[in-house]
């Protein structure tokens, strides 16, 4: 069997299975520049061709019976009804008023594209018409090779205007107008942040769209709010970057002069796209992301200075924390309680947009059990007009949680109760226990954090952001580079050595070995590391709920006292109280040689290790 066979077989899945599970229709990525715009228009042209046939125009190539015509990439041009013989005496275009026009379609048949003009565009079109001078008809028709306008008047007459039909003066701007509408012109290069000089009154219409969420039109006051935020971010043109993937968030702007601008926030958090062209930005762009989400109803709209004080820990569903563009980490329940306590001590004041934003800005995302969501970005409560008066305490807390370079190196933790274990170890998806002995264990959380928990002290004695560390070492770029990655550890001469297999797209790109220096809290790459020379098994068996182990990536690890660790992706949702859809669960079994015995839920790990089995 080939992989293509399998892919084709997936295409024949029962519709019930497909329908049942994918309730959201994948939406088209709305904005890409010339080609995609043209592509959309090609279909539009096909669609337009049908009603055109209905109203008596002459279709080219297809008979009315042909099923192909609705989606043909050929644009069907109408036969002009304007009487060419009277042009020199009575030019119908120069006196044509917008209120007499029912519709205008602009076409360019060579590229097979067309577009129906909006009311605003029709007004601009008429303005161009008034500057046009038609002096006769062409002796040799160039009909399909130029931009052509088809004008349908309210009295039912249809007129066709094209330099291929008429000898015209001052028509260049009209052609430019048409070709711009059709997306045939190169997008104008914009240097820097265009919003710095843009005023709200210049914007006739604006909307925001978030993938899979929908689209909302902005009101005037919201346009001003948008501009206030958009001005915060420096834009640095990246001429080699264009939007080639779907954007998460799109801001569509139509200015009063008819020009259109689309700001796309793409997949990479440090890039935005203006009309499809890439710009490097910094973490301040998050203010726009949050504002867009707020406009789409994704953030609470009724935050007041008292809002946080009314909250209790029980109201919190999940609290996540990040810095700038970094991925968010999830706080456990105890950490969330501390966060709320600090938050409630804060005075909340009217927002001050002069607040500096940078990539170190802290970012809290709070989901409440009632379904609402709150955002704190560098102390600003986005979308509400309020901010924290003095976010320094939260800043310190955030640094501590993320163990950034500014942070203290220890956590204040509760005694190791069952509940506590669940919170600490299962606060994020896919934790991995990678090493353990009677005194301490090493585990990762969400592939970002590496932690060492000291059983004797009852606290975490070491933590590091693995992704950040490896990124700095230049061996991975963001979380995507870690797809399918495992971590594994072993002890050699008293040191824990951490192995990392960095991979992208499912293919291993190499294995790096790192030494964990527990004393100093550093990771050091092992030179010329070769996993093939290791004399132990670095793989881990993941254990699904049915108890059948299977090989997955690299990871743990026999324990010194005869136990081996396993990680379960978590299907046994009844075992531990965890609020997410995932319930990661680490299991430990006692091994003697190849004799594997009972599974032990991770909540029982500590007592077993402490008691020596």
């Amino acid at each position, binding site marked *: 069997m080939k992989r293509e066979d399998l892919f084709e077989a997936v295409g024949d899945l029962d519709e019930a299975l497909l329908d049942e599970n994918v309730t959201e229709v994948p939406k088209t990525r709305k904005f890409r520049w010339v080609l995609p715009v043209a592509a959309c228009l090609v279909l539009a042209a096909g669609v337009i061709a049908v009603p055109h046939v209905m109203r008596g125009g002459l279709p080219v190539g297809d008979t009315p019976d042909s099923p192909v015509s609705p989606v043909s990439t050929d644009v069907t041009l109408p036969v002009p009804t304007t009487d060419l013989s009277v042009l020199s005496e009575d030019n119908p275009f120069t006196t044509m008023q917008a209120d007499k026009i029912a519709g205008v379609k602009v076409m360019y048949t060579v590229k097979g594209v067309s577009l129906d003009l909006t009311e605003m565009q029709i007004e601009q079109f008429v303005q161009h018409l008034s500057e046009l001078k038609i002096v006769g008809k062409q002796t040799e028709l160039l009909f399909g090779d130029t931009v052509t306008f088809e004008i349908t008047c309210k009295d039912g007459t249809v007129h066709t205007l094209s330099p291929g039909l008429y000898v015209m003066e001052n028509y260049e701007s009209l052609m430019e107008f048409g070709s711009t509408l059709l997306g045939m012109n190169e997008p104008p290069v914009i240097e820097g942040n265009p919003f710095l000089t843009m005023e709200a009154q210049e914007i006739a219409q604006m909307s925001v769209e978030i993938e899979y969420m929908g689209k909302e039109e902005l009101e005037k006051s919201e346009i001003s709010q948008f501009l206030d935020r958009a001005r915060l971010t420096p834009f640095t043109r990246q001429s080699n970057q264009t939007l080639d993937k779907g954007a998460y968030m799109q801001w569509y702007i139509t200015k009063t002069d008819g020009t259109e601008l689309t700001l796309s926030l793409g997949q990479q958090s440090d890039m935005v796209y203006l009309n499809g062209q890439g710009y490097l930005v910094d973490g301040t762009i998050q203010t726009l992301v949050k504002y867009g989400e707020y406009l789409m109803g994704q953030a609470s709209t009724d935050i007041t200075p008292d809002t946080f004080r009314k909250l209790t820990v029980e109201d919190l569903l999940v609290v996540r924390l990040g810095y700038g563009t970094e991925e968010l980490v999830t706080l456990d329940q105890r950490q969330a309680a501390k966060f709320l306590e600090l938050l409630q001590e804060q005075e909340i004041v009217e927002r001050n947009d002069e607040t500096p934003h940078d990539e170190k800005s802290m970012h809290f995302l709070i989901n409440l059990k009632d379904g609402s969501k709150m955002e704190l970005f560098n102390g600003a409560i986005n979308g509400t007009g309020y901010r924290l008066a003095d976010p320094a305490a939260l800043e310190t807390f955030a640094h501590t949680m993320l163990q950034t370079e500014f942070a203290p190196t220890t956590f204040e933790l509760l005694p190791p109760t069952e509940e506590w274990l669940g919170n600490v170890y299962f606060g994020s998806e896919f934790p991995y226990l990678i090493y353990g002995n009677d005194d301490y264990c090493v585990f990762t959380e969400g592939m970002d954090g590496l932690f060492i928990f000291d059983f004797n002290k009852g606290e975490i004695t070491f933590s590091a952001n693995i992704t950040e560390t490896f990124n700095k070492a230049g061996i991975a770029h963001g979380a995507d580079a870690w797809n399918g990655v495992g971590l594994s550890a072993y002890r050699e001469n008293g040191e824990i050595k951490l192995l990392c297999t960095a991979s992208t797209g*499912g293919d291993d790109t190499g294995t790096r070995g790192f030494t964990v220096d527990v004393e100093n809290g550093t990771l050091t790459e092992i030179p010329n590391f070769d996993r093939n020379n290791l004399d132990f098994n670095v793989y881990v068996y993941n254990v*699904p709920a049915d108890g059948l182990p299977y090989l997955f990536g690299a990871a743990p690890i026999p324990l010194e006292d005869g136990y081996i660790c396993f990680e379960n992706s978590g299907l046994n949702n009844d075992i531990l109280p965890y609020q997410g859809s995932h319930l990661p669960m680490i299991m430990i079994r006692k091994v003697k040689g190849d004799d594997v015995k009972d599974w032990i839920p991770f909540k029982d790990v500590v007592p077993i290790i402490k008691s020596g089995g």
Partner: protein
Amino acid sequence: MDDNEIIALYFDRDEAAITETQQKYGAYCRTIADNILKSAEDTEECLSDAMLRLWNVIPPQRPVRLKLFLAKIVRNLAFDRYKHRNTEKRGGGELSAVLDELSECVADTADVEGELQSRALRSSLNAFVSELSAKERNIFVRRYFYADSMDAIARELGMTANSCSVTLSRIRKKLRLHLEQEGFTI
């Protein structure tokens, strides 16, 4: 217009059926085709072909779920076009990654031959997917039916791209085991 009304237009041989289909499902189909082809030109041609095929098969066929019926047509046509395009060169894009992932579940041996075998494979795959949890099923379908990117799936389902990748990796391993147990050559 609801699907039944659109299908009725096809049965009436009314070309408005195409217009309505385009209007309702054009963006949806474009996403499916574009995920596979990553070429605006190919995508448009694929969509044209899909509309023609839809016009030709309804009637006699009367889809229960027009959206999925159309999705399958688009997907098949796009994949045919992808294979044709890539006979001479190795393609990039999302589908290339998707196929690479699926290669973990199969051995690159002879093609599945004959209707009987391919029907058995479809049946086996249906059984496998129906046993997945709702979330796993959703991820699987988005990735291997719609060829959606890992980022898009993760964002949609409120998870990280990394955990999405890990979940898919586990599903593939289970699928490989399932196919082995079902007697497909691995």
